[in-house]
């Protein structure tokens, strides 16, 4: 039988891969992401008593990581965007010859999104959180998350000139997403 502390440690270890992925999505830099994950683990350990067992540990940890990210940004002031990223963002991205998107192109396009849209589309589209959970992590309304995801997706489609999504074209999607009360 593991003690609560041992169990908590195991659960934290299990969450690290997702935390790193979320950290890279926010910082766009794996070293910074790992520093953020380290800070998150220390904070989580200290706040262990405030975590309610049985609730969503992953969402709790994502919230800590996100708060840490924004508080570091505020402390440092907005850092000058790395020049490589800024440069590539200005280049037009064309779908590769074989018609499917290159992952590097996708990453570059993702980096051009404003932070609020990027985190929203990552939480919903990749981390597997519900709109409600994402809203809680980002401390905003569910409708706000829906609208950010929708704008992020539209923007990615524009940048990447994605074709073949006719079944799920922008009109269908925005009416679906916006129809549920999200502001634009």
């Amino acid at each position, binding site marked *: 039988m593991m003690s609560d502390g041992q169990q908590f440690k195991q659960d934290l270890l299990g969450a690290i*891969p997702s935390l790193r992925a979320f950290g890279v999505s926010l910082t766009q830099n794996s070293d910074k992401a790992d520093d953020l994950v380290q800070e998150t*683990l220390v904070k989580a350990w200290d706040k262990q008593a405030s975590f309610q067992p049985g609730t969503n540990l992953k969402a709790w940890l994502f919230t800590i990581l996100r708060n840490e990210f924004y508080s570091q940004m505020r402390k440092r002031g907005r850092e000058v965007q790395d020049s490589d990223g800024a440069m590539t963002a200005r280049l037009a991205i064309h779908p590769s010859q074989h018609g499917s998107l290159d992952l590097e192109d996708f990453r570059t396009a993702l980096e051009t999104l404003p932070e609020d849209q990027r985190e929203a589309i*990552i939480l919903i589209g*990749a981390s597997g959180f519900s709109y409600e959970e994402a809203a809680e992590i980002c401390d905003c309304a569910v409708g706000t998350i829906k609208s950010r995801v929708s704008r992020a997706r539209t923007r990615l489609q524009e940048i990447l000139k994605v074709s073949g*999504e006719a079944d799920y074209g922008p009109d269908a999607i925005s009416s679906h*997403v916006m129809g549920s009360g999200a502001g634009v």
Partner: protein
Amino acid sequence: MSENNKSVRQPGARENGHLDPLGTNSEIGRKLKQFYDGIVSDTVPDRFADLLSKLEAADSARKKD
């Protein structure tokens, strides 16, 4: 973590499955998962396990005092 773990809920999945803006039928949705899962499946540096062991050791040392 498998990239092809179909047992997990597809992110953004809808009950009807047809208006899913980021599901498997969406190129954006697929790339998003590919980007993210690539990082998730990276080897985790040892520093994190070491850090947690240190935190744990510090806690038990404190309890003994």
